[in-house]
């Protein structure tokens, strides 16, 4: 011993000692270096206790050095950027980082939740299914207590201020993982000229080379990695993405990647996204995702200071942090000896190597012995001691045929327990790709088997152990992948790795015995995050939860934020043992995306807030905005609903707009209605097939209202269609159905009636449409046009004229949805505003008043005109609407003709459209949606006749009006029906659904 032992070793590692970083954990200040993770910095500062477990609130430390970390979850940052459940092992240290422990109260050291440990005996797996049932109905009370224990960290307390991006990407070869195999694969494919994306979840590529201290060609392996990266960086079609996790493998070689663009800083730079989601379509994929060391399941294996052997080596090699002063290694395999030797060389006092195997041998074991290390064979760690940090272990000899280890007991003091149960290849993505897994008896691991998609596995995720094998597999996979994309590729020359000593077989012992039966004393943890023990798993199996999925769900093993990366295999093995089956017969658990959790912000990307969905604007939109219109969303369109003037509420604004439209002239922006240009010699024949009524005899320049049905006979859409020429029609659709109608018509033409010569073009956006409606509509228009004869005889209702309006080439349709004299003026979109302005100017002396969709609704309801989607709901026929006249049953065929004949559509008691008139003097309108009954005194559940589809205050009638769909409504004219409302029962008389100008004089005037 020379200097006093400092956990941060004086040299080595890939940290930048020139750049010290201050950080805060649980309120205390510490410092680390650039290149540290939060975990390595905490360990360097001697912080052992970092978390409390989910269920028992047991003290927990850092157990791993990577994505598999089950324990060390922290609340990172604060306020609006606060993030829960972040693995300290994956947080890059930045200056000013703030983190806090979770799931404890009042503090990490003194956590009252740890009382759960006292009652642990009452809390076996699934205990909640067996309790909290008495007295009946009291679960909601118990639930409140349970919920208090729920969760780990907290959601932020304010909206996330950061931006996230999405990005589509295409490549020939996607290489996942930039360890030795991934680098070799990318090099092979990149040199061949393929478009390559190489991604790695770490800040620095290199994978295991970063911490292993391996050499290549006699030099530190990272020198080779650096050279490869430099070469890749110079290739124009190679993209290297560090800090990028491939989290999901989807169909047809699509993968989801999440790039942490700015998580290594306190906050993103201006304009920079915090994270970016990559949607990658790869022709070929090489998975070089590595392997994860597997913990041993021994008693009280969860104390802070119990750590995976390779993690400790990584902390030392990569971060120059010794995780303890005096260590015991507990292993079932040779490889962990490398870690022990490295730690020993790094100055850690290695008290003992406890090997489960009776006679370990081989070069590594010899090397350990040669260094004077104590190798204790055929023994197990049977217990650990300590509270917030481990202080020692008990070991004892394993006996053949016994579940207990009680002989040759010995206690060893230590502050670090390294353990290794072998390696679990990271086959998550391979499994998600649909590839089969095969079980390898020797290593107790599932390996990639037959691939289904264009994917190859290479390196330690493919079962390779030696560095040279990883390089070779990677290079071969990269070359083959490029070759499959049509590039002439050969595996690149590879550097020489140190020779790898032969490994002796490992000893698979899934639950390590102690001096008492499992579950009687202490806890053998399998899933550290969810506090699932070997005893829990055996209990579940005993109770009949024999499927691995039952086991997971009943015990919650593998259901934590680590998705069981360190626990799944042990759980599977314990279940297999408990049910007397082989591991492959039990199966694997399903690997589901994401590999590691993905921020919901990243999944969202930029299509949020103002960019959530396009807001579609008419060419006159800006005028409505300036006029102070209140808008409503109709599909994606934003339509002016009403135009309140100073001091007006909606009711008063509406009254003013309605009055103008009935008594003077109103102006309305109807541009959003769908317009489809139908051209071709068979256009009329086509319309005859898709509409219920007939079009062949419609004169040129004449308009007709039509219904389109679905094949089942129900109303799909409505609108006015105009014949522009013998072979040319203009179909109008409702605003919301414009796209579906066009798509449906194309479907029919392309797939069903291919012999018809008809072509469809959407011209919805080609034109702006301004509607003038009211007694003065003609006068206003007269002021604006010289070349259109507006005399009713020359220009009758339901016809079209061409000419200029306000100097603008226009098509003028004399149609009406208000019941008033009405003209729709269609001009090219860019002239829409000019037309509107001209109308406003010309109409000023006539009291022209803009009205919005709300007034439009009232006007049409007064006339009894239906709105598809309001009076209809996909279960209404034209007959139900009292519009049988629109169905030409003499036509041999039209869409919906047969559907209308079906039995249920012929029932006499179908719901039919009626009007409702309220009792004289009643000023309150019926709520839309109110249901109607025949019996005033009925009590729930009561038979209902139907419902109110539209209900308004009619300014013209100075009374409320309503439209309703009620059973047998046509036969109920004059009857009284009732609407039981929360505060009253309203009575109404069934009347014809037309309240205004039933003769249509105004319309035709």
């Amino acid at each position, binding site marked *: 011993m020379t200097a006093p032992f400092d956990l941060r070793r004086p040299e080595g590692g890939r940290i930048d000692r020139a750049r010290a970083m201050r950080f805060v954990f649980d309120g205390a200040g510490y410092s680390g270096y650039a290149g540290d993770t939060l975990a390595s910095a905490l360990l360097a500062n001697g912080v052992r206790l970092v978390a409390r477990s989910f269920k028992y609130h047991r003290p927990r430390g850092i157990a791993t050095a990577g994505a598999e970390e089950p324990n060390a979850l922290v609340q990172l940052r604060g306020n609006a950027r606060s993030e829960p459940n972040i693995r300290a092992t994956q947080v890059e240290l930045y200056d000013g980082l703030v983190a806090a422990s979770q799931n404890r109260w009042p503090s990490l050291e003194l956590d009252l939740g740890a009382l759960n440990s006292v009652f642990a005996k009452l809390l076996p797996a699934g205990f909640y299914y067996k309790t909290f049932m008495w007295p009946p109905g009291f679960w909601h009370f118990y639930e409140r207590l349970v919920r208090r224990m729920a969760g780990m960290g907290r959601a932020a307390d304010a909206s996330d201020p950061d931006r996230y*991006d*999405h*990005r*589509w*990407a*295409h490549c020939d070869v996607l290489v996942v993982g930039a360890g030795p195999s991934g680098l070799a694969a990318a090099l092979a494919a990149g040199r061949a000229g393929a*478009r390559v994306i190489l991604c790695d979840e770490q800040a620095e590529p290199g994978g295991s080379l970063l911490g292993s201290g391996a050499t290549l060609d006699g030099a530190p392996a990272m020198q080779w990695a650096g050279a490869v990266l430099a070469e890749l960086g110079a290739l124009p*079609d190679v993209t290297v993405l560090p800090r990028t996790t491939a989290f999901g493998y989807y169909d047809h070689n699509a993968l989801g990647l999440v790039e942490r663009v700015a998580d290594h800083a306190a906050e993103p730079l201006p*304009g*920079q*996204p915090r994270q970016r989601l990559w*949607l990658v*379509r790869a022709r070929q994929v090489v998975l070089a995702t590595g392997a994860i060391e597997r913990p041993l399941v021994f008693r009280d294996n969860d104390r802070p200071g119990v750590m995976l052997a390779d993690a400790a080596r990584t902390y030392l090699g990569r971060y120059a942090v010794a995780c303890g002063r005096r260590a015991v290694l507990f292993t079932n395999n040779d490889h962990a000896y490398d870690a022990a030797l490295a730690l020993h060389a790094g100055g850690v006092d290695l008290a003992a190597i406890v090997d489960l195997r009776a006679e370990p041998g081989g070069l590594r074991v010899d090397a350990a012995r040669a260094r004077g290390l104590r190798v204790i064979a055929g023994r197990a760690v049977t217990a650990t001691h300590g509270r917030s940090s481990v202080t020692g272990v008990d070991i004892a000899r394993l006996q053949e045929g016994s579940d207990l280890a009680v002989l040759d007991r010995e206690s060893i003091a230590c502050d670090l327990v390294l353990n290794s149960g072998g390696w679990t290849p990271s086959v998550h993505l391979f499994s998600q790709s649909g590839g089969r897994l095969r079980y390898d008896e020797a290593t107790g691991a599932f390996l990639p088997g037959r691939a289904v998609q264009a994917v190859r596995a290479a390196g330690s995720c493919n079962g390779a152990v030696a560095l040279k094998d990883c390089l070779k597999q990677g290079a071969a996979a990269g070359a083959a992948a490029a070759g499959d994309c049509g590039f002439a590729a050969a595996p690149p020359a590879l550097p020489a790795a140190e020779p790898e000593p032969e490994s002796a077989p490992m000893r698979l012992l899934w639950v390590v015995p102690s001096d008492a039966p499992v579950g009687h004393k202490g806890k053998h943890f399998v899933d550290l995050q969810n506090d699932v023990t070997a005893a829990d798993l055996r209990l579940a199996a005993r109770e009949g939860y024999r499927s691995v999925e039952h086991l997971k769900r009943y015990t919650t093993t593998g259901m934590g934020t680590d998705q069981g990366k360190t626990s799944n295999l042990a759980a599977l093995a314990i279940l297999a043992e408990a049910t007397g089956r082989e591991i492959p017969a039990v199966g694997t658990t399903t690997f589901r995306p994401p590999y590691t959790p993905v921020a919901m912000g990243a999944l969202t*990307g*930029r*299509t949020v807030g*103002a*960019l959530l*969905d*396009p*807001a*579609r*604007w*008419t*060419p006159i939109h*800006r005028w409505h905005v300036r006029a102070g219109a209140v808008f409503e969303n109709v599909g*994606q*369109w934003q339509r002016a609903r009403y135009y309140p003037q100073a001091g007006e509420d909606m009711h008063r604004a509406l009254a003013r707009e309605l009055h103008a439209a009935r008594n003077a002239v109103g102006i309305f922006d109807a541009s959003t209605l769908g317009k489809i*240009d139908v*051209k*071709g010699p068979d256009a009329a024949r086509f319309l005859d097939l898709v509409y219920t009524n007939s079009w062949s005899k419609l004169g040129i320049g004449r308009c007709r209202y039509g219904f389109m049905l679905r094949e089942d006979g129900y109303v799909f859409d409505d609108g006015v269609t105009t014949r522009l020429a013998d072979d040319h029609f203009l179909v109008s659709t409702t605003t919301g159905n414009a796209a579906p109608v066009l798509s449906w018509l194309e479907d029919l033409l392309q797939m069903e009636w291919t012999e018809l*010569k008809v*072509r469809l*073009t*959407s*011209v*919805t*956006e*080609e*034109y702006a449409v301004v509607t003038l409606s009211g007694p003065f509509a003609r006068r206003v228009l007269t002021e604006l046009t010289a070349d259109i004869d507006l005399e009713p005889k020359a220009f009758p209702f339901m016809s079209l004229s061409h000419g*200029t309006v*306000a*100097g*603008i*080439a226009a098509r003028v349709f004399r149609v009406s949805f208000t019941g008033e004299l009405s003209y729709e003026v269609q001009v*090219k*979109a*860019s*002239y*829409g*505003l*000019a037309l509107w302005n001209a109308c406003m100017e010309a109409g000023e002396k006539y009291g022209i008043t803009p009205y919005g969709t709300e007034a439009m609704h009232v006007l049409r309801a007064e006339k009894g005109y239906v709105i598809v989607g309001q009076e209809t709901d996909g279960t209404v026929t034209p007959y139900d609407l009292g519009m049988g006249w629109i169905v030409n049953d003499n036509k041999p065929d039209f869409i919906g003709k047969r559907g209308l004949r079906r039995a249920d559509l012929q029932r006499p008691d179908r719901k039919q459209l009626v009007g409702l008139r309220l009792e004289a003097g009643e000023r309150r309108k019926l709520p839309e949606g109110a249901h109607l009954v025949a019996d005033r005194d009925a009590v729930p559940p009561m038979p209902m006749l139907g419902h109110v589809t539209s209900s308004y205050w009619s300014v013209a009638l100075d009374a409320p009006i309503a439209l309703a769909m009620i059973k047998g409504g046509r036969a109920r004219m004059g009857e009284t029906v009732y609407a039981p409302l929360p505060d009253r029962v309203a009575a109404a008389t069934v009347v014809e659904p037309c309240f205004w100008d039933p003769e249509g004089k105004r319309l035709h005037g």
Partner: protein
Amino acid sequence: MADAIPRLGALDHLGLAARATAEPGAAGVWLGERRFLAKINLRGDPQNAAFMQAAGAALDGVQPTTAPNTAVRAAAIDLLWLGPDEWLVVAAAGSEAALAARLAAAVAPHGGTVTDVTESRTTITVSGPRARDALAKGCPIDLHPRRFRPGDCAQSLLARVGVILLRADDATGPVPRFELHVLRSMADYLWRFLEDAGQEYGVAVVESEDRSQGSGIR
């Protein structure tokens, strides 16, 4: 007569002309608008040689292509393939009425149809060294220079908006240029999306109507 009437473009409310710069400087993404380009939808049977010939003749010799997702580009006309029997003629602003009439007269006897869709869409130009990166944030098409070459066109989605996309540069320089024909009602949304997408690379508004590069419509 109509010339005296003010026309309103889909993006006029953004005041792009006033924001436009001649020198995009360090900005990675350059955005602009070309207003009122003539756009005519042409339909007809490509197997019908008479139709193809008539269309080509009416379009100053620009023959409709049967190669999917490519455009034929000439001095005054771009002719974009939209479907197996559908093309989009793009020509100089103001030429639509005459061109549509001429084209319709030529192809009607051969079963062709012509629809003027000039005002249905406006044209947003996206160029600059990071143009592809910005577009990739919303567009699933592979825009790699080898895969989407000068004169290639495609219909696809950008963010949640359907677009007709044309690579409008001639590949002589390092800076690609794309033209997006987008429905007028959604142009504001798309513009905002592109400004947002380009934010991390820097966005410059450029005067596209006078800066059209390489071949294409003046």
